[in-house]
């Protein structure tokens, strides 16, 4: 495993204002290194999504620090955080968030488009990314023409095309049946095994435990347990 691609130290995050203000994270520390797939598990309202947002530079911590590829996010302006996210982080969302009016190819290409890369090689890179997730034959399909599993695979292709060091996935199998969920996790585990990227998956889904190198449990804004995959079935 390589150096940490994302690190959080003693992160505290408050959400809301006034009487509605709640402490979503209470001193969370974790790291994600290249080459590993980490599961973040916990009950609803435990702070998983908030932690994912903080690690993904969408929210700034009130206290503590976050480093992405060695760079601290402290004091960065919103546009600088956006750039950090653009350069180093890929996202996979529970409800895919594909653009219904763009083809699979264009949805994947979008990651490079927002970086201002309009060179012809973006087409080859998008094809490669779609091939990695087994969708070479669906480049011209629109999201509505794809199954849920295929849509999620397009979303993964979009996350990896930009060579992001960290892939943050929010419940990527929640909307999928067992077979598709397994296929999606296999792809994410394969990405982690390449060694350069770390994959952090927020999940409730016990079916995907076998894919994890590590499992982190979070409750009430605190990490309550970190474990390797000892005792679990061997990784597929």
């Amino acid at each position, binding site marked *: 495993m390589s150096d940490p691609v994302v690190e959080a130290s003693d992160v505290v995050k408050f959400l809301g204002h006034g009487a509605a203000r709640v402490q979503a994270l209470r001193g969370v520390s974790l790291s994600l290194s290249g080459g590993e797939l980490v599961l973040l598990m916990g009950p609803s309202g435990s702070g998983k*999504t908030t932690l*994912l*947002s903080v690690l*993904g530079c*969408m*929210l700034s911590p009130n206290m503590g620090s976050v480093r992405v590829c060695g760079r601290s996010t402290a004091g960065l302006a919103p*546009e600088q955080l*956006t*750039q950090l*996210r*653009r*350069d180093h*982080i*890929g*996202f996979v*969302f*529970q*409800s895919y*968030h594909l*653009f219904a*009016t*763009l083809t699979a190819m*264009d949805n994947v*290409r*979008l*990651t490079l*488009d*927002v*970086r201002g890369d*309009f*060179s*012809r090689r*973006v*087409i080859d890179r998008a094809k490669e990314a779609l091939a990695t997730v087994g969708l070479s034959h669906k480049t011209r399909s629109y999201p509505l023409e794809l199954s849920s599993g295929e849509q999620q695979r397009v979303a993964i292709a*979009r996350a990896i095309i930009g060579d992001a060091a960290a892939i943050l996935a*929010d419940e990527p199998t929640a909307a999928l049946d067992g077979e598709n969920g397994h296929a999606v996790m296999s792809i994410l585990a394969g990405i982690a095994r390449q060694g350069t990227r770390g994959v952090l998956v927020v999940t409730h889904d016990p079916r995907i435990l076998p894919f994890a190198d590590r499992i982190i449990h979070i409750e009430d804004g605190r990490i309550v347990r970190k474990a390797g995959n000892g005792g679990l079935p061997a990784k597929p």
Partner: protein
Amino acid sequence: MTLGEFISLSRRDLRGGLRRVGRFSAGAAFYIRAAVRLAVAVLAGRFVIPLIFKLAARNLFHDRLRLAATITGIVFSMVLVTVQMGLFVSFRTMVTTMIDHAPADLWIMPLGTKCFEDPALLDERERFRALSVPGVVEAAPVLVSFAQWHIPSGGTTPVLLIGSDRNELGLQPWNIVAGDLYDLAIPDAVAVDRSYFERLGTSGLSDTVEIRDLRAKIRLVTQGIRSFTTTPYVFTPLDRARSYAGISPNKATYLLVRLQAGANAESVRTHLNETLAKAEALTPDAFRSRSRSFWLFGTGAGAALFAGALLGMIVGVVIVAQTLYASTKEFSNEFATLRAIGSSSRYIYTVIIIQALLSAAIGFGIAAAIGKVIVKATADSALPVLIPGGLMAGLFLLTVAMCVLSAIAAIVHIMRTDPAVVFTR
């Protein structure tokens, strides 16, 4: 606040304003340079077309009904603005038609004259005073006066007589479609515009009519010499005009001055103003400006036209802003996703601005076509709508500005959207 503080504040505001203009210009220059470079690279096959255009176009065309509402709003707004501005241009041109067609270097008129149609009178002595001024070669009298035209079938209608002798400095009819200018020398000859035949109760050339109980015969017919006041112009030689108007032979409304070759118009004008007793001299430009000022702003007509145009713009901005905002809100998930995957604010602004520009281009295209139809339909009316090329270009820029301004609400909405919402939707 002291005067010093006021000046200091004003300077600060001016500096701030100039800085903003500078930043805006730099931003616009950046976009133009980037767009040109990109277009060249795409045409050369080195680049692919950015998805930003596809996103904007698909967002816009996704909901056809809303697109139709947006385009209708822009079209209504721009047709209204086009008609108002077209009328303004037409009005502005028509109020100086006679001044534009008079071959004078200077105009001498009774003191306080507000416009060409102002029927005050000069005494002939002013002509001799004018001729005594060095640099003045000729001062030809022109009479402008209202008279009663007897309609052959009964009743009368007012006409505006233009009395001028046929010489180098005469104010003669133009756009002649029947008869000859020499025919005006025939006793009782008058010239009228054919667009007024019905109003004057005549069938045209050779008709004999009466003006103030005196015989007149139509010997010349013009086309397009119309007055925005709807009162027909009737051209006739000076003496006959005096008779028709019942004005004594030593009176005139204007003296058209021809200057000696090489004479300085401004210094002659100054000298004339010192010499004339109850008259003043103006350059043609100054007289045009005075006439326009009177008709457009003194009467409130120009303000009304501008108010109509402004109203049209406000309606357009509100409709386009509302539809763009609704469209952006509908696609807020997609915009949040764009932000989550790292698109810059500029990228997102650009998507919305392109939507606005596409709307502007479509809306303007339709509005311009309707404008052309209106121009044709009003060509023979008392106040035709005129849309010269410059106005058309200005209206296009105005449409673009209106649509871009309308995009602000959508941009503000989207920039307030937290990208983290993508995890909760």
